[in-house]
């Protein structure tokens, strides 16, 4: 069904490679600031360092979870990988080809990466029948011709668990869970190699969440999709992903196989994040089973020097305030797959 058929046993090949990519957002200067800058005055630029020198590989068939608190840059990184935001520095390549062109307003160069967004109420055009929403991309890019588009759309609707008649309806005639299915069908209809999902279940109710998570699990097995799954919900991430990367203030602080990281976090931030999830309390006298991390995420306008986490870290020492730890396979970590960016990793 996929256009780029994958031979068996190529699970290990790197499909999408992010190398030392950074993204900074600078608001455009006001007219007054422009004149001030022209006259040689110092102008406060207020640059947001959303993503800071991140390297990440996405392997064929892998489901990678990207977790972190809001403002840590996970959505920005996802959009960079999807070819929506150009990187300020560094490169993002799909099979060795940059995902975005060059120039002042670079465009995405591939349709092999597609994205599913958080809010299906905002990501579907309310005035367009969903059959048209799903069929437009494949028609334009020649994946299907006008005579076959109806059957093509019906086939993808069926894949995501919607009836073929749904194509005639408008977005407002669907519930939140169904709309998210439409958004998934729209992304899949482009026959992507990589699906980037930015909080795809966050806006759904618990009972609907389970339905959509099951859909992703089914798609993962049936279509052998490569996915980047961005979420702040650590329970969902644990359930659906093979590997995870934990982000803090624009940098990846820990990476490894999901279950290993959950059972044995090596970065103090990962540990603190896992400790702060409230769990279902059903017995025992102690009602509260979680610990809170002190403090809040520092402003990405002025990130602290050294390790970004040192202000909240219980193990921080002098070196952490000045030197940025690399994301490395530290000697104390025998496992090849585990990477951590910390001067004093746990364990």
């Amino acid at each position: 069904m996929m256009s780029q058929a994958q031979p068996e046993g190529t699970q290990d090949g790197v499909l999408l490679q992010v190398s030392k990519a950074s993204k900074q957002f600078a608001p455009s200067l006001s007219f007054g600031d422009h004149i001030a800058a022209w006259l040689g005055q110092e102008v406060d630029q207020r640059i947001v360092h959303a993503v800071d020198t991140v390297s990440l590989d996405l392997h064929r068939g892998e489901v990678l979870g990207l977790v972190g608190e809001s403002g840590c840059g996970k959505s920005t990184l996802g959009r960079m990988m999807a070819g929506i935001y150009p990187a300020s520095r560094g490169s993002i390549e799909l099979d060795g080809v940059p995902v975005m062109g060059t120039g002042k307003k670079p465009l995405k160069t591939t349709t092999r990466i597609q994205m599913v967004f958080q809010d299906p109420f905002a990501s579907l055009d309310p005035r367009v029948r969903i059959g048209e929403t799903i069929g437009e991309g494949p028609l334009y890019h020649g994946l299907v011709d006008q005579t076959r588009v109806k059957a093509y759309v019906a086939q993808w609707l069926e894949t995501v668990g919607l009836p073929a008649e749904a194509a005639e309806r408008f977005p407002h005639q669907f519930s939140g869970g169904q709309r998210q299915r439409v958004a998934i069908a729209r992304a899949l209809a482009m026959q992507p190699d990589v699906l980037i999902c930015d909080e795809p279940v966050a806006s759904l109710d618990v009972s609907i969440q389970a339905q959509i998570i099951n859909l992703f699990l089914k798609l993962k097995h049936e279509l052998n999709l490569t996915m980047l799954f961005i979420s702040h919900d650590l329970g969902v991430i644990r359930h659906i992903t093979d590997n995870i990367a934990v982000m803090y203030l624009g940098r990846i602080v820990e990476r490894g196989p999901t279950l290993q990281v959950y059972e044995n976090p090596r970065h103090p931030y990962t540990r603190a994040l896992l400790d702060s999830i409230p769990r279902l309390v059903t017995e025992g006298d102690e009602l509260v089973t979680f610990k809170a991390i002190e403090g809040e995420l520092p402003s990405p306008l002025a990130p602290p020097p050294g390790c970004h986490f040192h202000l909240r870290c219980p193990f921080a020492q002098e070196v952490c305030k000045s030197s940025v730890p690399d994301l490395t396979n530290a000697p104390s970590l025998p496992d090849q797959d585990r990477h951590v960016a910390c001067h004093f990793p746990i364990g």
Partner: protein
Amino acid sequence: MSPVLLEVEGLSTHFMTRNGVLKAVNDVSFTLHEGEIIGLVGESGSGKSVTGFSILGLVDPPGKIVAGSVRLQGRELIGMTDAELRTVRGREISMVFQDPSTTLNPVLSIGTQMRLALAAHETTSRQAADARCIDVLNKVGIPDAARRLDYFPHQFSGGMRQRVAIAIALLNHPKLIICDEPTTALDVSIQAQILLQMKTLAQDFGTAMIWISHDLSTVSSVASQLLVMYAGRIIESGPARDLLRVPDHPYTQGLLNSLPEHARPGQPLVQIPGQMPSLINLGAECAFLSRCTKSGPLCQSSPALRSDGSRRVRCHHPVAGDWQ
């Protein structure tokens, strides 16, 4: 057990829409004791927030409280005039809403907003008022409170703004705080801080709380009693841990089973099929019928809420099965 603080009996709030009568809250009854934290859980559209609003008389047309009574220490709140209600709101019962960026006034400093909340209920000197404000801000964990009084809401982060909203709710030492998804808009690490703080505050002040949320895990970590709502009705209630260990209603059981932590990673989750029916023109049958796995012929009529001491369930075929 501490004395009864709030009795809600047969509360029904309906919205008169163009398409018909939407029964958002339908015959809801529960009792809250002083200092108790009760969790009100359900999906969106289950009526949990409207229940909270109805207690405070915050239902605007086309919504209307059509039946029931809400008694605060024996005093009936339904039918009070707006002027009378204003003496209750903020002083005896206060509310914390989901999104702190919309509940705080963006053009007033938080000091001004807090002084207004105080002045609505008593006359104090500026110094005494400021001292009170600084005191509660300290209690909710805002450092350097004296200086922060002059800050505007946009100068705070989301977590800090919610702390300010909680501080305002605590200002007049209310007997009851209704918290409508107070941590949903926040990150896990900030949510954990606020949950811990709210629990401690409730204990220190002896404040009772109604904690409205869709998240069973957060509710279970703060509440001692749970009310589960579905399609405008309470379908199950009881002591929180007991109820979560042995749920009686198939819906509660389905919700619990659908949590990722109850499944092996990578395996399909147990899912409740379908979705909640429209609350307009609800039929005579059990509202959960179309999604239920245990339904039988009896379910064509809506079940009554049966009580067994501390537990209540609205189901003809409860999971545990030893109901009469």
